[in-house]
């Protein structure tokens, strides 16, 4: 499909800006634009068509089944979009005085209350823009906490599981900590012996996803928490998999001191092709003083932003957080009420049903009941037919199903990580099983069908190596020389 720039014609226009017939002051010499940006020039008709046609080349939850493990691709209620667009929310300026933003502040305060109850921890900041920023915030909180206790220099190590999301180690580095990894047992729990050997006075804390990225709840979580707390360290709960346990088990009760939520996973903020998200963080009372500034607080019937937080780590993003995301998540929670538990129960039931029906045709490295997701391995297909997890993933596309997460977690070879979520009906699950079984059969009977897949998408299989080797990261406007330079530089 053509790029929008390839549909552009000099002099064509869509939008116009009011001029009010006023004289335009001169831009001071040397500061004025010398060359106009080559923005697209189209009339509105073709802009709408361009993006409509692009949308048609994209797959969302609204299109079909999207069992992308660890991403919790559930139905995004449409009423939430209408609510976030209400003028009283969408057109509210973030510098509006608190008395002119009471509705927004009340919503945020109520959201904090619900999040706190879900986590089993009393204090919540809504500021982080995403789960990954929540992680970083959590680690900064640890640093501030230990600094405040005079242990700042000593506590320099964070432990993560070998099954951890890549964000965990990256966040550890960005926050200026050392990383240490702990092994996973054959049953899919943290290896307690390994843990005991690694936790010591240098340990600042643990970062753990529970259930893990294997979709397994750590059966020894109580002991794990004890090990860290006994060493004076803190436990951080990566909320990426929170959808498994809402109303069933609370991170605070498990012993975690800091928790981040992914509002775009558990609480249905649409992910929009990569964002926005929201990554609030909840903490125990002892960590509350360090939360980012400002905080939403309630004084009687009045809500306000509290900027007077002397021990705060500071500000991790602008204003009080991604407010539009809060509106959607709050609305989502209010649609469920206490039945948020049924949400998680159903997610777990759906996952276990798929697991039960698929584990014979594919391998299940950790053969236990799962929580909200599970990880299969295609290694037998690879061994017997040369078919990889990637081939299976690409072939699923031909059946109008979004592939699961592949090659993650790293501890499982040829991993297929499957998370159906609670909003899928049994018919979709059955249809997915049928397709997965058919693909397993195709791997034996017609492996080239998988190797060459997809066949039914707008493009065939794409060359990712080529893209990385000679990066073309913007349109060239026919200016080959300039592009060449970039490619060279990028190499």
């Amino acid at each position, binding site marked *: 499909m053509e790029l929008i720039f390839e549909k552009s014609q000099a002099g064509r226009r869509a939008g116009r800006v009011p001029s009010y017939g006023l004289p335009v002051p001169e831009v*001071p010499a040397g500061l004025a634009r010398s060359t106009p940006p080559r923005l697209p020039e189209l009339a509105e008709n073709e802009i709408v068509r361009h993006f409509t046609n692009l949308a048609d080349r994209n797959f969302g939850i609204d299109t079909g089944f999207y069992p992308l493990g660890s991403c919790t691709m559930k139905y995004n209620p449409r009423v939430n979009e209408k609510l976030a667009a209400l003028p009283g929310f969408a057109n509210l300026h*973030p510098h509006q005085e608190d008395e002119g933003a009471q509705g927004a502040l009340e919503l945020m305060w109520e959201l904090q209350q619900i999040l706190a109850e879900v986590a089993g921890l009393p204090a919540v900041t809504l500021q982080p823009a995403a789960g990954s920023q929540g992680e970083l915030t959590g680690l900064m909180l640890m640093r501030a906490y230990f600094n405040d206790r005079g242990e700042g220099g000593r506590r320099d190590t964070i432990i993560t599981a070998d099954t951890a999301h890549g964000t965990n180690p990256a966040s550890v580095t960005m926050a200026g900590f050392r990383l240490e990894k702990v092994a996973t047992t054959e049953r899919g729990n943290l290896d307690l012996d390994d843990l005991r050997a690694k936790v010591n006075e240098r340990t600042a804390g643990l970062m753990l996803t529970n259930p893990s990225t294997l979709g397994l709840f750590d059966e020894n979580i109580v002991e794990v928490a004890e090990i860290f707390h006994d060493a004076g360290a803190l436990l951080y709960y990566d909320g990426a998999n929170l959808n498994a346990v809402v109303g069933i088990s609370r991170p605070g*009760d498990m012993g975690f001191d800091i928790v981040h939520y992914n509002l775009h996973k558990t609480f249905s903020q649409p992910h*929009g092709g990569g964002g926005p998200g929201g990554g609030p963080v909840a903490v125990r009372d002892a960590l509350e003083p360090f939360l980012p500034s400002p905080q939403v607080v309630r004084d009687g019937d009045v809500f306000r932003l509290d900027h007077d937080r002397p021990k705060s780590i500071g500000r991790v993003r602008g204003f009080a957080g991604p407010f539009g995301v809060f509106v959607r998540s709050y609305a989502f929670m209010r649609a469920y009420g*206490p039945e948020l538990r049924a949400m998680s129960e159903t997610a777990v039931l759906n996952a276990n049903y798929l697991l039960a029906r698929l584990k014979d045709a594919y391998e299940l490295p950790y053969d236990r*009941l799962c929580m909200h997701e599970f990880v299969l391995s295609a290694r037998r297909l690879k061994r017997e037919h040369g078919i990889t997890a990637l081939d299976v993933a690409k072939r699923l596309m031909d059946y109008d199903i979004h592939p699961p997460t592949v090659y993650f977690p790293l501890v499982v070879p040829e991993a297929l990580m499957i998370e159906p979520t609670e909003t899928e009906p049994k018919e979709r699950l059955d249809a997915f099983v049928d397709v997965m079984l058919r693909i397993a059969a195709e791997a034996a009977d017609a492996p080239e069908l998988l190797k060459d897949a997809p066949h039914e998408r707008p493009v065939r299989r794409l060359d990712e190596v080529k893209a990385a080797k000679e990066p073309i990261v913007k349109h060239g406007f026919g200016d080959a020389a300039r592009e060449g330079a970039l490619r060279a530089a990028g190499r």
Partner: protein
Amino acid sequence: MTAGYLSLTERDREEMLEAIGVSSMEELFAQIPAAVRLDRELDVPPALTEAELFRHLEELAAKNAHAGVELSFLGAGIYDHYVPAIVDTVLQRGEFLTAYTPYQPEMSQGVLQAIFEYQTVICELTGMDVSNASGYDGFTVAADACFIAKHHTGRSKVVLCETLNPQLRQVVKTYAPGFGLEIVEVPHDGGTTDPERLAAAAVGAGIVIFPQPNFFGCLEPAPDLAQAAKEAGALAVAHVDITSLGVLEAPGAYGCDIAIGEGQGIGNAQSYGGPHYGFLAARSEFIRRMPGRIVGETTDLNGDRGFVLTLQTREQHIRREKATSNMTTNQTLLSLGGLVTLAWLGPQGLRELGETCMALVGYAAERIHLPAAFDRPAFKELALRTPIPARDVIRAARERGVHPGYALGRDVEGMDDVLLVAFTEKRTPAEIDRLAGVLAEVCS
């Protein structure tokens, strides 16, 4: 009552439990130690039907003094620019709205091509070679730039102009301990940054970040500031107002290494501060140090053009603790709003947008009889000196239905009598006359 988002019937549930080989839901949760199971109902407000939910949130929304209720001249980083209707048309299409990060490119050519187009327009606006797919907002991208500079130059000193948005400086300071950065701030001189003072501060620095226009609304001598940074061997980073780039020079044209900024003014609602998108673009040599997603062009099995997330070896899911950042989520949908808006404006529209803002500033300067706080040319914001504290002016003006702007004293010491008034293209001369009248009244 359960929300209508769950699909299983009672019969489904029974059949599925049987297929799993368990007799109850409880059994599925046996792996959770009893000690950490919640043995009561969540203590959260009761469920609402959609009609009730709508009403509840309408009532909350009605408690906010938004742009439709109060004539507002608030700016200071977030602006009431017009968002064309087609933005929602595009963003609310389920294929864009309800998609995840495009890990599987064959399923996601729509969003991948859109990001590629976004990267192109950001490069065009900034005069840079490469843009990422967006950052969280216009402040966190400053921290991202510091991360690039630290690794590129090996220097930990960061120079920030005091004329930058205070929130940007706060965010960089929050990130600084983890990144191992040392922050130096350069005070303003009469509303803008003195290049010589900046040059002095830049010695030994890895990065210098300056704004254009600045937080006080004034035009900085940006080319001189960039040169001062370069001469010190630091990366020169301009934090620019995206709406100004039809009339103001592209940072790439005056030698910057990196250009960053807040995208909200192009295609996003104000939304009490988020979600929005931050942009980050750089010269090509920094491509492998850039945080965040980048989309690249490639070909498929048939040799046809297609797009993929590329240079992923920078990223956390492959490089883990050695990644250029921990970012997974960016702001794709919001930046798509930016792309649609820029396509709608085109080069002429973007220029008109800047011209109208400047024209309104000129009109306001004539009509409002308060002295300018700084004797500098402005782009779309005027800093005015008030005879009483700006906060009191705001309080009194709001009682008259007009929010006159931002009290600079909220952030900047010694500026309690400075009011920062923003003029987007949506503010009409008649509204400015009304503001002038109210200000005359409350300041007399």
